[in-house]
């Protein structure tokens, strides 16, 4: 339905444009759809726009749950 990739904001170029980095590849993206984006933040990039910020805390939490879930099992 909708391709969206997490990219890290590395440069804010104008009031609405920024550069996002995905594994060393940099793409110009538009920030009009998100609020309060700072350098270092991760955003989901879709069709040249940041459509949402990635919540780092929640990401860690999901990874923790996955880890607990998979490690808590007998091999």
């Amino acid at each position, binding site marked *: 339905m909708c*391709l969206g990739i997490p*990219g890290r904001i590395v440069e804010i170029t104008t009031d609405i444009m920024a*550069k996002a980095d*995905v*594994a*060393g*590849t*940099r*793409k*110009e993206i538009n920030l009009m759809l998100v609020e309060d984006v700072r350098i270092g933040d991760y955003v989901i990039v879709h069709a040249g726009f940041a459509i949402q910020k990635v919540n780092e805390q929640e990401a860690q939490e999901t990874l923790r749950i996955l880890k607990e879930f998979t490690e808590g099992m007998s091999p």
Partner: protein
Amino acid sequence: MKQERILLSHGSGGKLSYQLTQEMFLKAFDNEFLSPLNDQAIFDLSASRLAFTTDSFVVSPIFFPGGDIGKLSVCGTINDLAVGGAEPVYLSASFIIEEGILIQELRIIVDSMARTARQTGVKIITGDTKVVEKGKGDKLFINTSGIGIIRNDRTFSPHLIRPGDMILVSGSMGDHGIAILCHREGIQMEVPVESDCAPLYNLVHDMVSQSDGIRAMRDPTRGGLATTLNELAISSNYGMIIKEDLIPVKEEVRGACEILGFDPLYLANEGKLIVIASQESATAVLEIMKKNPLGRDAALIGTVVDKPQGKVLLETAIGNKRFLDMLSGEQLPRIC
């Protein structure tokens, strides 16, 4: 030459054509077969087995990070000869030029062809130039044909592939495809990746002179690894299983692919080999490849199996298997 740009008259066969040949092509490619400027090059090869191939190059843009259309046109033909086990010796070069291209640009391309040919000890011994009207071409098309000598009685062919053989690649996949793509209109992406465009003869020579376990070689150009492996599977009538985790792909290329919705296994390479080697020799072949700068990142990525016949299976990053099909259509940036 006084003109700054190529004009229709440069292809008319008159004075300007002569000038272009003399001052550009002869200067760059200079050799005893070309300099008489006959309608043909006459040579003696005294070899019983020869390889002959042809390829046309229409890449856009004509200059890209890591190379240009000239380098590409020489590498492409050298590589097509090399993967058959032939030593490339003579090339022809035919130019179809759209009027208006800067003579300086053409000169850079021609010099780059000469340099690449010299690197592998290949001579460009005959050629042709045509100029088409503005709008009837895309700056420059180059066709090269090549002749190579097969110095022993060895054959490399998909028909020699057997179950149990190993599949190797000489380095990271997709570099050329991504390097070209980023310079297309509307993509606006900065990828610190250069085209891998390189002549592979020296690498192939190292391999075949030190190992006799190599069954077949291919260069995975258009259609990428996935398409070339499918071709090998179909010609050999065996199956292939490769592991996603083992396929070398540069991080930046993966990143670019994620953004555009591309699969690096379908991207073109211009300086990479796929090698099928017997099980016993595979590790040794890998070591030989790694010693050559062009095979530094070589990897063993899978094996040949009995079944499914003519198909390629991919063991995905999470351990499941699925088919890996040939490329259909072209990869286009997608939103979904």
